[in-house]
């Protein structure tokens, strides 16, 4: 209820001119410094609205008189960042991949970039540091390579992928589904598995291994080699060593024979810059299993 603004006898302050149930409120204004700071922020805000994009509008916010737009600023920054990288990337594209390791500057640059690109593109399947994953994701840090471990081999694999449908130059091979397609019985598959175990001296059933040997020679040796040494042209793994992508016990080997294995890796050509693919190849090569390129 409005009332007269008057001086309060006790405190000497003015009242606000309102009264509620007989209680009058003293006028205690905000401190002057606070008010002026507040006014200054308003003035600042008006200047800001004039200079910069501020008010949401149909088809985008109002353009300030400076014409500054955050999206354009970041685009410019990214453009200048890529411009800074351009000479190095051009050198990497122009250098034969086998010579990339010889130039310390190129190698360090490729390793740094390759590490990041690996984390972005390869790590989901191949794991951090190329540690691989059970079930068909090869370890990239060991010395076993299905399709070859030279820089050129690795670059080829990354560019065109493995059994990548979209790429005509992809690495392609198909192991038959021996049991599933009726070429062998389960018992024969078990015998072949026993023979495969015998290749690395792990067989416990000599009779079964002996039964499996002629089947192996007929069906498997064409790709995996007479002694199981494998064949990189076909991506056929070495069967005598300790590295087993899908498991090296009798059951896993029998399953592999019965249903076949055919891992797929996408082709990165077109998705990644050729220079970045080379940097990835250098990074993977240095994980521990890199093989020297031909003629070196």
């Amino acid at each position, binding site marked *: 209820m409005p009332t007269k603004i008057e001086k309060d006898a006790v405190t000497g302050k003015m009242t606000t001119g309102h009264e509620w149930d007989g209680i009058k409120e003293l006028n205690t204004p905000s401190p002057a410094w606070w008010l002026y700071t507040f006014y200054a922020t308003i003035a600042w805000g008006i200047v800001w609205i004039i200079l910069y994009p501020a008010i949401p509008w149909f088809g985008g916010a109002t353009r300030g008189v400076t014409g500054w737009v955050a999206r354009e600023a970041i685009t410019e920054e990214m453009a200048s960042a890529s411009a800074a990288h351009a000479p190095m990337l051009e050198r990497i594209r122009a250098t034969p991949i086998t010579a990339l*390791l010889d130039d310390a500057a190129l*190698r*360090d640059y490729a390793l740094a970039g390759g590490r990041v690109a690996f984390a972005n593109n390869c790590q989901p399947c191949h*794991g*951090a*540091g*190329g*540690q*691989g994953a059970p079930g068909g994701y090869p*370890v990239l*840090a*060991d*010395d*076993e390579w299905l399709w070859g471990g030279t820089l050129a081999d690795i670059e080829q694999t990354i560019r065109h992928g493995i059994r990548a449908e979209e790429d005509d130059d992809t690495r392609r091979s198909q192991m038959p589904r021996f049991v599933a397609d009726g070429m062998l019985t389960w018992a024969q598959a078990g015998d072949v598995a026993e023979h495969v175990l015998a290749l690395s001296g792990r067989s416990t059933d000599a009779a079964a291994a002996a039964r499996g040997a002629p089947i192996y020679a007929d069906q498997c040796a064409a790709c995996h080699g007479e002694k199981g040494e494998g064949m990189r042209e076909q991506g056929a793994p*070495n069967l005598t*060593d*300790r*590295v087993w992508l899908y498991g090296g016990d009798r059951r896993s080997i029998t399953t592999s024979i019965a249903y076949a294995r055919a891992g797929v890796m996408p082709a990165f050509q077109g998705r990644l810059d050729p220079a970045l693919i080379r940097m990835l190849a250098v990074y993977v090569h*240095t*994980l*521990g299993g*890199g093989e020297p390129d031909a003629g070196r």
Partner: protein
Amino acid sequence: MDGSLEAKASQSDAPAPLYASRVKVYPAAVHGPVRRAKWAILIVCLALYYLVPWLRWDRGPGLPNQAVLVDLQGMRLYFFGIEIWAQEFYIVTFLLVLSAIGLFAVTSLFGRVWCGFTCPQTVWTDLFMWVERLIQGDRNARMRLDRAPWTSEKYLKKGATHAAWLLIGAATGGAWVMYYNDAPTVVRELATGQASTSVYFFFGLFTLTTYGLAGWAREQVCTYMCPWPRFQAAMFDDHTMIVSYRPWRGEPRGRHKAGASWDGHGDCIDCRQCVNVCPTGIDIRDGVQMECIGCGLCVDACNTIMDKVERPHGLIAFETLANLDASTAAVAAIPAGPARFEPAMKARSGINLLRGRTLVYAAALLLVTGVILGAMALRTTMDLSVQRDRAPLFVRLSDGSVRNAYTVKLLDRRQSPGTVVLEVAGLPGAHLSVIGAETDAQGRPLLSTRADGIVTWRALVTVPDDAAPHGSKDIDFRILDPSGRRLTAHESAFVGPGRP
């Protein structure tokens, strides 16, 4: 009657206000030995500050030739022949600890000589006051000028003062950035507008803080902002030399007519010269107080007056509390007057430098100095850092052997690159290879170093399946020079598969 009593009661009940506005201090000019010492120290301090960045020191090609330089980009600290890398910055921490203990030791011996003579706040304030006095005149002239209306002369004098202060501030800020950049280059860049934003920022920051702190804030920095005066009393004891007024000699103070007898009269003639020259505006005759920065200008001022009234020097002096007490006790029975002088001065004892407190500080100084010298002496020219790959934990190779991979960083402080041998110890049957490195006749990897820099290598340690440890085993990486002498080493571990 009642009303007035109530009013009085409420007045005395009202709490004293917590805020007091500054009373501007107009220190008068003073002459004497303390003032001369202060000028000399001021000149030395400023000369060091402004000239040190210009000193050159040849470190060979590719390295800065500035004697004292903080290289933030390269994360190095150059101090003449000493080069401190970022990871050795603890040495600088120990230097700061050493400085702090040194400050404590000096304070407990001689009072606040740091505050009064060498603190940058004191030095620059002194310089600013000198400029002010040169342009606006001494204490009385300055007070008159402040009271006078704004005439063209006042505008001119005040403007010239502030312009001179800003110039000194700019020189201070300009010298500061020289410690972080090559001095001749950064000066040229500053002058031609080509320096980086951060250089201009710090140039501006130090210009304005110098101007503000030495021109405007002055003694308020010491009284309100600086933590040191708040706890320096903890370093004082009865044997600390502090700027003291000798009440046994000065009291009862009061006016004295030339030629009259001094009997029954203290030597203090209450001329207030000690107050007028004080840069913090206090009265030293009130005894030791937090605001006193121990500059001793009141000693010079009082001695000048003592010469005029033909009394001996030292009514205000650098004196210990113990001596003050001894003198006071010695003259308790003697009435005020010149007769007190001799017995009081005789009762004093010499300076007691070897006290428990100072011995503790001396021991701490020696200890920290030893730590610094030891750390400097034990620095190697080469540092090895080995970090084991955590993913994959280990790799099983096709022949069943187990391999761990390591990132090896080799830091070489020498000015020319060299070749060293890397070997691994503590794991029988282990084979060490480094990607991209040559090997020596024994098959050990040869690493080339980068002069005054770091090279990163990738090392692989492989052991046959039957020799692989179950779980983790500690191993040592060692760097040998070509003659087989061990240069440095780094501990790491080899992880093998757990027991099946």
